[in-house]
């Protein structure tokens, strides 16, 4: 599992809080019940718990993804608005 991080689709997430119960090593809930996730790569010893949390998310919002390599600058425009 090394090189993977836990992320959440913020739009899909409805704050059920299951993830924080199954993966308290990496996830705590804010005062409104939404996850605050440790952004560092998942340790090997946590991999099982992380997978279980991902599979248990009622909104399928939690994901384990490959930690992004340093993307080329051209691929990372900052948010543009208005």
């Amino acid at each position, binding site marked *: 599992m090394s090189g993977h991080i836990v992320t959440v689709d913020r*739009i899909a997430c*409805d704050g059920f809080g299951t993830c924080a119960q199954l993966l308290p090593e990496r996830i705590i809930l804010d005062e*409104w*019940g*939404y996850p605050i996730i440790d952004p560092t790569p998942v340790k090997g010893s946590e991999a099982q718990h992380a997978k279980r949390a991902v599979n248990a998310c009622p909104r399928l919002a939690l994901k384990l993804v490959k930690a992004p390599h340093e993307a080329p600058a051209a*691929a990372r425009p900052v*948010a*543009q*608005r*208005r």
Partner: protein
Amino acid sequence: MTSTTRPAPTSSSGAISPRLLGDAIGVDLAKHVKAFGPIPAQQKVKRGHAGALVAEVEASGLAGRGGGWFPTGRKMHAVVTAARTSRKDPVVVVNAMEGEPAASKDSVLVHRNPHLVLDGAVLAAQAVGSSVAYVVAHRGSRSVGTLERAVAQRQGDPVELRVLSAPARYVASEESALAHFVGEGIGLPVTVPPRVFESGVRRRPTFLSNAETFAHIALVARRGSGWFRQVGDPAQPGTMLVSVSGAVAQPGVVEVPTGTTMRQILGLAGGTTGAVAAAVTGGYGGAWVSAGAAIDLPFSVDGLRPIGGVPGAGVLAVLPTDACGLVETARVVQWMAGQGAGQCGPCRFGLAAVAQDFAMLSAGRLKGTGLAGLEKRLGIIPGRGACRHPDGAVRFAGTALQVFDDEVQRHLSGHCSAGRRTFVLPVPAGKVALPVERPGEEWR
């Protein structure tokens, strides 16, 4: 705010003759061609290949004027690269929405020189290999009609120009929301990645930027990158439009080289109408700065960074000393909380809580523990929305606590030193905080 405009005069103050806001041309295409020359011809490019203009824009150093200040040429390159890998033709989107209540530069530009914006859209579309450019303005704004009349004057463009009107919501002009609106008709932000440059309108690579950026592209195509770089901060050269409001004699839009000092910008807006305490830079997702610290700094990304300010979408709103920065902030944050899409919990509930805290603080009813709670909330919200709406609102609120720290202490003991009874910053009327469970008609 009003939309008076004054060209920046040539003078030793650092101001130059205007590039975008010279004579008011309007929708008359013949007048536009007489003033600026015909739109330069370009060779058709194959999918996944960049036209010569892309390199020229990159060499010019032009950076996005919608607030991101990302290098425009690099963004165009990224779109071309994504077109090559995805084998999909790109789309171009011009953001003329002007979601910022304290900004009027896009509408001023569209009314004075609509064909400069449209030329830029056509030229950029050709250069990245797109056959269509969408120009989007707020539904119900005068810009929609002006753009439609201007497009109707044009014939023989190698690219189709379409004018769209999108919901007049702040977050609807966020880039993923705008691409979503152009493609599917729903002006709500979507989860990224993929980013708009690789998968935007109908999953096509999408070059999306602010209307002012496109007007600059039209001039780079005519006059070249060397000409473009002749003025401005070398890191983000050229001129920029600044919407000046608040305690100035002549609120309106001025065109200045990037990096012009705030003192010079305020001078072009008729000077201040009295002692000033602070200013909003960038917009309502931007930052408060103290007037004393900012007044002689260059109004640019690098110039304002040391004091936490941002040029953003070119907003500069000046607060007189008799106004309360916390009351002003409370109104803006309340409005910003209501302008979110309500899709992401930390933004939906977090901004509402911050707005509530600021309402209490501004009314002198917040205690020390409440302030600690507010600061904690400001610390955990950023980065936790699909888009950056919460990040901007939180930055605005957080910088208020720093810039008005004396006033915060006074308010904690139930006092306010402001003598003023009217508000300085414009906050549009309308519904407050109505998050949606699924996209309602208001987003379509």
